[in-house]
């Protein structure tokens, strides 16, 4: 029953004191929020803190959410983004997050062919490292659009900027990622050669 409700309906019920609705909303949205924070910070500790803060914020300020301005998911990502920034400013230097932590490695293990698994893990780590080395405003759009698969419009709501800004940042971020991967991991997944855009 509650699973068929939209996020906004669940939030409305939760704010009226319906614990089941809040639990359903939490379970539906905590994963993406956690992964967003994880991809941004490469730290499961930060990701957990941010997830908790985001939902506490929703309890405190949920009435301020206006569905006319965007989806609740985008709103949550926007809140999460601010908490990630705070957390990283507070206790993690940029150098600390340029490499995915070893503690995150077990999750990269899958049940497929071990060799393929290793290759995929290497690719994942290489691309994650490249993502983490991006400037923050590029990293945000990559994580939201490419990893969280948000639409440009929802990403624009989450980051509070124009659709065109999201598009251009993403395009630029992709070019930077390709260059980084060509430099750092040319053997991985065939990243080699010149991939400069043609403007003729």
């Amino acid at each position, binding site marked *: 029953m509650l699973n068929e409700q939209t996020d906004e309906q669940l939030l409305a019920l939760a704010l009226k004191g319906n614990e089941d609705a809040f639990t359903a909303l939490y379970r539906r949205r905590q994963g993406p929020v956690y992964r967003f924070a994880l991809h941004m910070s490469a730290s499961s500790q930060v990701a957990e803190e941010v997830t908790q803060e985001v939902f506490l914020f929703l309890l405190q300020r949920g009435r301020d959410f206006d569905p006319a301005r965007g989806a609740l998911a985008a709103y949550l990502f926007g*809140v999460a983004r601010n908490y990630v920034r705070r957390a990283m400013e507070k206790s993690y230097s940029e150098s600390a997050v340029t490499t995915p932590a070893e503690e995150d490695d077990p999750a990269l293990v899958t049940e497929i062919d071990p060799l393929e698994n290793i290759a995929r893990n290497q690719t994942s780590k290489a691309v994650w490292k490249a993502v983490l080395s991006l400037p923050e405003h590029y990293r945000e759009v990559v994580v939201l659009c490419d*990893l969280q698969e948000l639409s440009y419009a929802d990403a624009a709501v989450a980051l509070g900027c124009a659709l065109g800004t999201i598009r251009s940042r993403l395009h630029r971020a992709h070019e930077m990622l390709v260059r980084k991967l060509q430099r750092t991991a040319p053997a991985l997944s065939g990243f080699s050669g010149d991939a400069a855009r043609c403007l003729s």
Partner: protein
Amino acid sequence: MKCREFMFAAESLTLSQLSLMRNEDAAISEHARECAACGRWLESQTLLDNAMQALRASTARREASPQVEHAVLEVFRATGFASQEAVEPESAAPAAWRLSHLFEYGAYAAVAAALILAVFLGSRLLHDRQMSQHKIQARTGAAPQTIKATTTKTAGTVTSAEELSSARAVKVLRVHERDGYSSTVTGRSDSSAIDSDEYDALMLCDPLICSGDEQVIRMELPANTSTGGSGQPVTADVVVGDDGLVRAMRIVR
């Protein structure tokens, strides 16, 4: 398709959409085959998409620990929903929300400021208008009293400046009192302001001599002086120059 069109189309797509279109969109795939640079670029984007998919898949199962859920639900149970407004960080809201709130509050402030300004200007305008009315009343209101006081000897009535037929600005200067009739004296700053169509000139005056201010005196003349026995007094406006000579006159009633 040209390279620019190809890039324009590609930029509007996400990585996964672009990988999809590579196989499904004939124009894109054809251009990628024809143009080596665009082909290489599209290939790099596809590889990037594959790498992103790998990263996405590797972290797809990651989520917050049950302790987080437990902590959040504890807070939910402890939260009184009626007293939520006083709590903390507005600054964690997405920038768009904060900005929209700012604009909203700004709009309210602007409307309030406009209302205050309108009330202030309105009151100033009203005050100025009242002040000017007071001034006029002070000028016009004093005259009838004086006139009444000075016309005890006469049988006629005295009119105030506002009752004079002219719509132009008229100042009551003083009251002349003569035997047998009363008069209200008004002045005009400009001698040319006298409407010569209504007045009958009583003397021809040299412009060098008659260039000074003139006064209009409303007089009530005894009936026998002008009408010869109708019994009603006659009201007349008389234009008198500074030299005391009558320039013109008209019968009002």
